[in-house]
């Protein structure tokens, strides 16, 4: 069995899902791999500088957006980073991001100077999103290497514009509870992590799983993966209906509407959401806990 944690869930869902997986020897994967395995592996190789939004708002005067869709992902970007509003923003769009990044790195000295004129106190921000990473580790590594190069001159921060509400929260919660950001096999014997073998489409196509329990709304999943999901039995714990046709759907509470929950902002600052209404819907973690409890009896 595989449990998919979708990134609109609050991070409270993570320990419960982990306990459930442990009891059932299940795979645990996330729907946004970029904030998890791919970015983590890239950071390990190249490192990165980041900052919370308050700093970026106050001292950033140049912004580079990698991927043109970033303004759609972050419609209120200029609120956070006034430099965007002032027009000091450059969009990098390319069919081949890897080659584009290599070109940028090769001319890094020059481009860093162009970007940030000659003032010493100039600081920049590179924002990148999923479209730019294009499902690949190498692009993420190259991107962060480019940032590291930029950082030898002026100070450049980076942020990953995660496409879903709480990609970063799920990733961080997994890191602190399990030690790895998804793509794992959880059993009583321990946790095995393999970002290559244990990606959802690999798990399905290699015949490692026959059932998928999807927690949250899988709207972020690529179309190809949704096709793959048709090959196995799916159970959905989602606050709203989706275009998947699962064997079973259990409606769950949504953090910030029906229940409290913690989500992380773009800069990974945790935000506590309080419920708006009192409804009968239960949070995902309660479902996981009761499933774990039942099996124990």
């Amino acid at each position, binding site marked *: 069995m595989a449990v998919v944690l979708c990134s609109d869930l609050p*991070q409270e869902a993570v320990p419960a899902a982990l306990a459930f997986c442990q009891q059932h020897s299940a795979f645990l994967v996330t729907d946004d791999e970029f904030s998890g395995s791919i970015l*983590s592996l890239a950071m*390990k190789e190249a490192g990165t*500088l980041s900052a919370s939004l308050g700093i970026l708002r106050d001292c950033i005067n140049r912004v580079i957006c990698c991927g043109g869709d970033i303004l759609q992902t972050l419609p209120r970007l200029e609120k956070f980073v006034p430099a965007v509003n002032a027009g000091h923003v450059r969009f990098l769009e390319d069919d081949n991001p890897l080659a584009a990044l290599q070109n940028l790195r090769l001319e890094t000295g020059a481009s860093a100077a162009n970007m940030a004129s000659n003032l010493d106190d100039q600081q920049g921000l590179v924002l990148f999103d999923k479209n730019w990473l294009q499902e690949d580790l190498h692009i993420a590594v190259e991107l962060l290497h480019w940032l590291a190069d930029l950082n030898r001159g002026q100070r450049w921060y980076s942020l990953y514009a995660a496409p879903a509400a709480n990609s970063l929260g799920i990733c961080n919660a997994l890191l*602190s509870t399990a030690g790895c950001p998804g793509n794992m096999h959880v059993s009583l014997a321990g946790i095995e*992590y393999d970002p290559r073998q244990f990606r959802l489409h690999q798990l399905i196509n290699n015949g490692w799983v026959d059932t998928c329990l999807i927690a949250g709304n899988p709207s972020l999943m690529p179309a190809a993966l949704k096709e793959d999901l048709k090959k196995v039995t799916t159970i959905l714990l989602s606050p709203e209906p989706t275009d998947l046709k699962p064997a079973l759907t259990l409606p769950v509470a949504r953090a910030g509407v029906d229940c409290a929950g913690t989500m992380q902002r773009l800069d990974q600052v945790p935000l506590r959401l309080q419920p708006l209404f009192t409804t009968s819907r239960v949070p995902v973690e309660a479902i996981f806990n009761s499933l774990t409890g039942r099996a124990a009896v």
Partner: protein
Amino acid sequence: MIVIHGAEVYNPARGHAPQPGDLWIEDGRIITPRQDVIPEQVIDARGMIIAPAGVEIHTHVTGYPLSLARRFTLSEGCRKNPLLPSPEEAARLYLQLGYTTVFDAATSPLYAFSSYSDLRQMEGVDRGTFVLAGDHHLLLQALASNDMDYARNIIAWLVSCSGGYALKLVNPGGGLAWKNHRKAPDLDEGIGIGTLTQRDVLKRCVQAVNQLGMPHPVHIHAGQLGQPGNAVNFCNSIRALESQRAHLCHIQFFSYGLDPSGGYRSGAEEVVRTLEEFPQLTCDVGQIMFGDAMTVTADTSALSRLQQGLKKPWISNQVEAEGGNNILPLKYAPKDPSNAVQWATGLELLLLSPDPARMFLTTDHPNGAPFETYPQVIELLMSREARLEALQQVHRAARDRTGLAAIEREYSLGEIFAMTSFGPARSLGLNDRGHLEPGALADIRCYRKQADICGMFASPEWVMKNGRIVYQNGRVDTQGFGEILVARPKWDQDQLPHIKSDLENRISISFDLYALGGTKMENTREVPCTSTGF
């Protein structure tokens, strides 16, 4: 009612020598032996050593920086990394070492919720965290205007709203300087807000915290961490505290002399001599051990310096109006002259310090080494022979540039227990542990007497928390034990609008969501503050 019978009992509250006798326990606490009742359970502990459980005063096992650090250790089987156990695992591992109280050294208020959710998972031990404020803009501003009343309120509010236990200062002003592309300020250099200097920040914060009567005084990480020749600055920082109560953490990293070659030499003697002038201070050592380590620190200035030397990938995250979180993987090599001197300096500090209840054993986990190496350090302290043997294995700089080889002192068992239990508990203001007097918590560790010191400390016979055995024969039972220890110093509610408007000018988050965002903390115990008025 439980009786532990026949053991050699070390009660650091009554000196370093063991005492024979039975230990009586009722309702999770130690009681005076009774003649009139028959106990429900007698634990046969003949041939055993009984001591109060360990108290960890400085470690890094929770919070957002640890998530960042885990990103650096991703590989197959990442869970087994002893440097970065998950909070749940860390609690287990501490219990297996005989520690039942664990304090995580740093929480940035903005990320306080991350720390709290990690602390919640550390079942089995009493735990808590310190709140980072050495670069907090509001606090520095208040200190700069010398408005001590407002500064006290800010400290009290910050610690309370972050669910912390004490105030921690990390190289005050250093983070601010780094953000502004300046070098970290020296002790008497302006930090960039008015005429405020690092000396002022240290002095006034220590004063404010002591006035608030918080159980643990200010937990200080001084300036110039890791730089050769920093012992002079560190001694000046100690004097800057002007005989007030404080705790200085991982002082090994601040106790270096400058070798004529430009490298490290030990400054341990000078530091210990200076510390002797101020008996109200406590310290922990931050011993390094050879092998892999992971630098987890809020001291961006020091880490960026290290990173520029090593040219290795790092993660540096700057927090608005506060300091930063920085991660850099390291490896301490026995054949590296600098590392060898660092290693010897830590041991020298411990061995030169006359009072084990004032100088504590830590490895600043995972900065110096994983905490699982404590038994190895203890062996080095208790056996000169082991020390000299180890000295032969490392670079000769450890013999030439430190005084370690000449030191003959060997710690006694009683001193070890004073150093790992009694001292830290007292420094933390936790009077109910660290000793075995009637009324103390029945947090007890039990070792089988043996010649192999390292082996003995690495595997206690059993460990008791609140009068129940939680570790025995390799099995850890953490269910339902341990509380989150918090301090809630009093602060003036009338100042709230003032703090709110000041804060909202500085940060990108609404005041209501700041720190724990008004979340009710579960399973906490408030350790009272003993304010004596201002």
